[in-house]
């Protein structure tokens, strides 16, 4: 029975994902997504990595961009599809079950903007460097990479404090919604290594959350 109940709870988890994330990030994620989406212009072609239930995808689509959202979790995408149907935005959005390792299939220099909310931190070191290489390839010269993610504080004191404050929040969120997030270390440095020009870094005071605007070198074609 233990297994049965656990599976039942876990399988209905995608429906509670958004709520879980909201608890875990204390609502700051929505504001971060809005700030990032402000860089997206009408008519642009956007790729949303790890779109999940489509929170960031939705904001991009509302600004009149054509968005392709990819994620490996079909149940999350199902929730996303329902959401876009309700919003009447289906013609602006394409959701595909696809992992970052399958970006090979995307044409070079075909996207104006690539967005990623809480996705890069989910990747292993190998996957992250592969993904950044692929994103450089598929972005148009001058194209933007917009990232919002949990970060690992660089200041050791803040790191300890963050761990202490975060731990109960992680437990509560997991119990209620079976959702959790991970953090990534020195994302700006990794983007620079991949050849991006990091234009803006907005870090929370605790250094546990980071928003990044990075540009692929070259003249924008638009």
């Amino acid at each position: 029975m233990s297994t049965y109940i656990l599976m039942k709870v876990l399988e209905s988890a995608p429906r509670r994902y958004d709520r879980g994330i909201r608890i875990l990030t204390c609502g700051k994620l929505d504001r971060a997504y809005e700030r990032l989406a402000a860089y997206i212009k009408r008519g642009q072609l956007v790729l949303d990595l790890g779109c999940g239930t489509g929170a960031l995808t939705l904001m991009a689509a509302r600004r009149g961009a054509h968005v392709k959202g990819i994620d490996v979790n079909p149940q999350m995408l199902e929730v996303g599809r329902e959401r876009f149907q309700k919003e009447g935005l289906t013609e602006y959005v394409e959701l595909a079950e696809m992992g970052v390792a399958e970006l090979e299939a995307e044409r070079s220099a075909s996207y104006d903007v690539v967005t990623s909310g809480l996705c890069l931190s989910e990747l292993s070191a190998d996957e992250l460097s592969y993904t950044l290489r692929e994103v450089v390839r598929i972005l148009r010269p001058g194209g933007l990479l917009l990232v919002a993610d949990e970060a690992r504080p660089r200041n050791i004191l803040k790191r300890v404090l963050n761990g202490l404050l975060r731990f109960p929040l992680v437990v509560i969120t997991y119990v209620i919604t079976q959702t959790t997030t991970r953090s990534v270390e020195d994302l700006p440095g990794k983007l620079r290594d991949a050849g991006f020009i990091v234009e803006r870094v907005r870090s929370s005071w605790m250094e546990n959350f980071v928003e990044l605007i990075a540009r692929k070198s070259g003249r924008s074609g638009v």
Partner: protein
Amino acid sequence: MDGEFCRINCEEKRKERRINLLAYAAVNVFETLLRVVPFPCRTGVIKIGAPDKSSPVFLTGNYHLTVVRVSRALRDIDCYLLVANSRGYNVWCGAAGGHFTDHDVISVLKTSGVESLVTHRDVVLPQLAATGVEAGVIRKKAGWRVIWGPVYARDIPVFITSGFEKTAATRQVDFALGQRVEMACMWAFPFSVIAALATALFWLRIVLPLTVLIWALSSLVFLSFPLYSSWLRPGKGGTAFSKYTVVFDFSRVLIILWSVFILGLIIFYLFADGLGRWSIFRWGLVSFIIVLLLSIDLKGSTPVYKSGLHADIFLTVFLDKERCRGAGFCEQVCPRNCYRVARAKHTATLVGSRRCVQCGACIVQCPFDALYFTGPRGEILSPATIRKFKLNLLGERVAGVGRNSPRRRR
């Protein structure tokens, strides 16, 4: 001088091997006791021995104990071992529960750098991943050919020397004594710890007998498995088709366990001094709860016998002779040896459908969609449905069958 050097060298090697063995044993004991918890480990490529551009490539999930065991089984082979992200679950549970998917396999093939290490594009996957990882998709999206390896890593050396061919024995999942002991330990340890912690505060005296009881009962249930396994078949006909009747239908297994419990109670009564009626009732109730929990746990999805937890047991696998071209993937992935493939005649036959545990691996892998499940009223569950829902504990893949079948709706 040379001899002296060799002697020291050999001794050091022997010492090193002893330490390795000790560490291996310690990891095995520790992680077996805590097997109910996922133990994720690093994903990526592991080099074993001195592999070159043509060395074989093996792949497994990132459950730490699995990686430790597979690495040990491969220690005399020059090869690469890819560790894919199965979220810290073992291969079977990961694949059957949708945590170990095509995406995870493609990801490690593409991002680990293995493509620059070898010139060939053949990867050996554990057979039990076949319920969740589709060979055709890996081929199409990543350009790698999947070879289904043996069920157990210990059979890999023989698998290689026989030219990557499996025998009926290395395709079959057995539930051998060693595995049953592991299962008993992985069950008894966490439950006895939880029970001890819960009772220690207010009733210290009960902790020891309770712990002994949990260990004894779980050993009894798992060790005596061969004695009652033949009863683990669903009843013939007349079975109500609802998720809940299946969940609460404990069938005959429980009756056997129940009588064992009665027997234990009598033994307890005979040997324990001054045992009142009240304490017999109390211990009876406690052991009944333990047996109940165990028997429900035993009914989960396994590659050994039919699960009693969901309506999948009412499905029958059907082979469409018209579509079958004898590719033989069904034979390669079936953990119950239900298929016989005539390579020369290009046909497969379903020789052991009674043994089928409805894992669906054959249906997922068939390149011609020649296999599908049929429900008790002749409903067809398409290969697409099986691929989408895999082996789902909640029975989502049969959701359409039970609820919407014409006779039920009324």
